[in-house]
């Protein structure tokens, strides 16, 4: 556990040692703000809630999360530091979880910095802060889900651009699985896949949280989703080590 946190702290420090952190956070906040206020019609709706904010957040994460995860393993492989890291007395699992936690903590920091939205609705009206809190939990979980996909795919290549594109594509599939365009198409052509797609639809799960519903089923879903991808990540790292 301790070793995992040491790895995570180094990784998190790595984000802030380079402009990655500031660029990411600024772009994230600008995008979230622009989408919420303009497309989301935050003021015109006349409702004191953060629904416009939460409805865009999965898509902003979809775009930005692969940028956080792309370097995690691809860069270690390109620089050869993976050899150094994994010949230290740590297990692959500790390295995988440590890197994931660093990326997750980074997303959490970005989310915390959206606090002005919360303050704004509280000044303008009387929102249900419980619903807002559960929305934030959901946002953190959907970030975690996308991050776990990105981490695993980053380990498949030495090239950060490939890692980014792969992560974006796969996360996009999981996000789209919630939409009727995809599910209708699947149920007409491959009905068995449609059922699976509906179960894996991450945005459906997230929407429960934005309505203020924190259910054990959704928590278990996100935990197993993240767990599965981190396990896959370990397997991929093991395979790349074998040459």
């Amino acid at each position: 556990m301790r070793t995992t946190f040491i790895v995570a702290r180094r990784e998190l420090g790595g984000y802030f040692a380079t402009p990655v952190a500031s660029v990411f956070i600024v772009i994230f906040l600008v995008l979230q703000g622009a989408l919420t206020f303009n497309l989301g019609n935050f003021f015109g709706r006349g409702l004191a809630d953060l629904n416009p904010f939460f409805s865009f957040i999965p898509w902003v994460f979809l775009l930005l999360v692969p940028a956080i995860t792309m370097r995690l393993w691809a860069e270690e492989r390109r620089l050869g530091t993976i050899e150094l890291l994994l010949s230290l007395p740590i297990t692959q699992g500790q390295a995988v979880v440590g890197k994931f936690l660093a990326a997750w903590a980074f997303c959490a920091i970005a989310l915390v910095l959206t606090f002005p939205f919360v303050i704004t609705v509280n000044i303008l009206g009387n929102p249900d802060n419980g619903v807002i809190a559960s929305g934030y939990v959901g946002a953190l979980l959907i970030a975690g889900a996308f991050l776990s996909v990105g981490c695993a795919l980053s380990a498949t290549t030495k090239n950060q651009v490939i890692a980014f594109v792969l992560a974006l594509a796969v996360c996009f599939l999981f996000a789209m699985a919630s939409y009727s365009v995809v599910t209708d198409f699947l149920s007409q052509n491959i009905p068995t896949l449609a059922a699976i797609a509906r179960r894996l639809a991450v945005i459906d799960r997230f929407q429960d949280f934005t309505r203020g519903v924190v259910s054990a089923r959704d928590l278990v879903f996100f935990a197993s989703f993240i767990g599965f991808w981190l396990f896959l990540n370990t397997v991929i790292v093991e395979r790349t080590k074998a040459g």
Partner: protein
Amino acid sequence: MAGPAWETRRGRQGVTDGPNNAALIEIEHLTKRFGHLIAVDDVSFSVARGEVLGFLGPNGAGKSTTMRMLAGFMPPTSGTARICGHDVGTDGIAARRMLGFLPEGAPTYPDMTVESFLRFVAKVRGYRRAELDERMDKAVALTHLDLVLAQPIETLSKGFKRRVGLAQALLHDPPVLVLDEPTDGLDPNQKREVRALISDMRRHKAIVISTHILEEVDAVCTRAIIIAAGRVVADETPTELQARHPSGKLEDVFHQLTLDQFAREQQKEAA
């Protein structure tokens, strides 16, 4: 029984000081295949405390692959490697605690400063507070990094980067050191320093270094292994090795041994 007498003697010398001839590195029938290519072919050897083993061979002979397997990074296709009795595959963490490893090209994290990088390694190695500082100071002093501690590693010269890699490997004063080309990229003075450092540490450790520089074998190694096309073609002292060729030059011996093996491989391929 002679046991107790030996125990007392050992006790006086300190717990970590085992019998002098104990093999700290044991490699048995290590083989690595990449598809059809056999990179390392049935390599066996052991290294005892007090030995500096020079690992020689042409590029692509399997030196780095062998060292990677020994460091527990790359799983072998077959065979085993043990460090201080711990199997690097099944008891990897314990084995890696006993090991200081400098991977090929001395990779380090370019964004980190020398200090934060070494601190990270020290923390992973389980050191805290005062002990961590003490370990850091020692490793920094040994590798003369004190002036660049606050600098990001990417701004350092090749020689300094190599020394950072070396400092990382020496940090926990491990009984086993595996150094893949420790003097590559250093200037002659730095090379000399690193060699002196290796010679100083020799008595308490089992050390394996790979190198292209044949004079290094004479300068620091007590034993040399020449590997060609994945096979061990010679395993003896530098003096014995020199005696193999009438000229008495290691270069000629190396040339002869590695080319012979190459020719045999070619014949095998043709047959």
